[in-house]
């Protein structure tokens, strides 16, 4: 479970995230949407303990990420938007390395790593250095690393970026299976179709503020448009509707 309490981050005068209060329950997939620069990645970094909040805190399975960061991180699997990993390690070595840091027994890590390689069709590349991997393969190895210690909370920043359609579908199915197993899944995405089809609840952030939250149905009710899809709701809530007129004006 994830719970944020007045989570705030300021960079100088810029308030990147302002008093964010959200709760994501176990077994739930929570979609975190917002335009570019809205504060999505900043929020994710604070939830994962990579960035210190200016004010407020976040609880991971009831553990305060500020007070007990190490214990809280043990419950988290993070998949960042850009899969920057050690280029000179092989995929297998990288997974074992992460397993060691999370104190996973080697037998168990080996079994889990082989499962991941098979699931993501990386068996042939397991012993190849990561510098030889494509972007999508790196994304797969990062997802595998995030799952190797069987975390109860998964934080995804753009989970399907760089993946081919088959792998993207695999990740989407995987997320559903993990949620059914009771994992808490928090994901930010720009792909509204994914959010609409997969997420149990959606939060929309704009200029650091949570401007809407709920199921698709609840968001429709809020927008007083019962037939609108998520894209239309998103544009209406984030003030992007003007773009339609602009595109029309430009003659496209």
């Amino acid at each position, binding site marked *: 479970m994830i719970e944020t309490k007045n989570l705030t981050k300021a960079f100088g005068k810029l308030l990147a995230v302002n008093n964010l209060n959200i709760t994501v329950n176990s077994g739930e997939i929570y979609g975190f949407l917002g335009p570019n620069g809205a504060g999505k990645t900043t929020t994710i970094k604070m939830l*994962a*303990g*990579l*960035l*210190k909040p200016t004010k407020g805190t976040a609880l991971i399975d009831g553990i305060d990420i500020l007070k007990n*960061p*190490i*214990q809280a*991180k*043990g419950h*988290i699997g*993070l998949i*960042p938007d*850009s899969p*920057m*990993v*050690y*280029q*000179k*390690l*092989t995929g297998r*070595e990288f997974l074992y*390395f*992460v397993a*060691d*840091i*999370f*104190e996973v027994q080697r037998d168990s890590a080996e079994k889990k790593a082989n499962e991941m390689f098979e699931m993501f069709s990386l068996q042939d590349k397991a*012993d*190849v*250095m990561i*510098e*030889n*991997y*494509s*972007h999508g393969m790196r994304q797969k190895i990062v997802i595998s*690393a995030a799952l190797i210690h069987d975390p109860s909370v998964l934080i995804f920043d753009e989970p399907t970026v760089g993946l081919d359609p088959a792998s993207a579908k695999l990740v989407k199915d995987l997320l559903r299976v993990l949620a059914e197993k009771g994992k808490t899944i928090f994901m930010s995405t720009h792909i509204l179709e994914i959010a609409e089809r997969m997420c149990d609840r959606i939060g929309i952030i704009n200029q650091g503020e949570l401007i809407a939250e709920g199921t698709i149905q609840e968001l429709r009710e809020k927008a007083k448009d019962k037939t609108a899809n998520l894209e239309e709701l998103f544009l209406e809530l984030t003030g992007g509707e003007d773009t339609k007129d602009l595109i029309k004006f430009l003659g496209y």
Partner: protein
Amino acid sequence: MKNVLILLRTNFRTSYNSLAKNKKLRPIFAISIGVAGVVAFYFLLKLSRFLYNLKIPLVNISLAPLILNIVMLVAFIYLLLGSFSIMLSTLYFSSDTMLLLSLPLKERDVFSGRFVFTVFEESIWLFFLMYPFFVGYGMVNQANMIFYAETLLFVLLFPVIPLTIAVFVILPLAKKIHPKKLQNIIMIINVVFSILFVGIMQITNPAYQIVSKDALTNLFSHGFSLMRFLPTNIGVYLTISLAERNILIGTFVFTIYLVISAGLFYLCTLLSLNTYKEGLGKIRTAQYVKIVKRKAEKEFKGFSFLPTKIKAIAEKDVKMIRRDQKLSVSILPIIAYLAVFFFIFVVVLGKKSLGNESFDLSSFMLLFFFVFSSYMASLQIAPMLFYTESRSVWVLFASKITSQELLWSKFVIPFLLGEVMNALFFILMILVRHPSINMIFVSVGLALFLPFIFSIIGVSTSAMFPIFREVKSPKKIIPGKVVLIQTVMGYTMFGIAFGFFFLNRLLIKIWGGTIAGIAIFILVGILSFVVGFSLMFAGSRRLKYVEIQ
């Protein structure tokens, strides 16, 4: 031509903007750099005028032409050695390569723009470091304005020839070998060449011979006889002719130089027509090297005694050093320098035995060596290993690892390397120098504890500035502030070693050599542990969050 100018303008703008993030600070930084350059210029000008006025009494010859030639030769060799890496990075690894390739630009224009900008960049430091020697020469000889103008142009164009030589090698090779691989090969050749160069210098001109007056005279006479064969001699002819107001000859020599430079540049642009595009094509995909499946390596058991997390990171770092040629190549010179210094301090200077109890300069040099060795092996490597986490550092910071564990894991390799180097040199010292008991205790104290404290300084000061970024060279990965702090701390340690030397001398007089040695050993140990653990605690307190750029 128009496109080349557009590219140059963009390069200038980018360089200026990268001076500081804050727009208002940029002119301040630019002015500060300019002031520092002027100060260096002024100092070198004074130095050159002083040197030009010197005469060697025994042979009664002026040093001026020799100094001019040495300055030009040093600059030429430095440029030639560096130009391979510089041109390779500029031509193939600039961040805007992909963008430029997608624009309607000819490869020849991209090449020319980058080459001219590199010449400009190199000319800046040459102006501040080399031109003062020309100005000084002109002032001593009361030269006219033509001298200053032509020599200025000569200095500004000086990088053209070494850079074109590099281009003639790089462009055809990059067509066949992947530029990334070529970069590693060039780095290795540079290191091997530097080591060989130092070795040859040492063999042909051992340091102890220089102190002889005859040898000094021979050195200068030898220098003069060699001068006419040096490639930079054209600059000396040009300078001397102009200074002596032989304007016609001087200008003729300068014109020849100009024609050679322009001709070489033109040939480079012709070469780029057929080669540059193909080399660039190689770096367009992520899979730039032949994919080699690694055989299961024999697991390294050397760190089995460490806790699991610290062991995992240390083992990972060992793999990175072994596999990342850029990293291993930057560590190699440190070990090579240590070997050369050991040769000078212990073998060359250590002709006499240290069997007596007194402390002479030779003994101090020996102690200095252990400080130097620990400084190079531990303090130089610790921050490099810390920051090579680069943008992958999120893996550690999103994991279940404390900042204490992270810092100790980064401490392991530099500490062990320092200890191994010191142990090796200690054994050699015993064999070569036959030191006294006092000397053994003091040496063991320094050899044992200094890698400990230097490694801790390296990681703890790095932890105070946890900024991780992606850079091309491992040397640039350490933030400037950390380099500055560590340099100051390194000098402080040298100062402390100096203090120990005098303290030991004092204690020998009071207690005798053996007890004095034991006292120093204990004192160094206590100080190292107290200061070391305090610094580690302070570093880990700061390292809660990181900045990933």
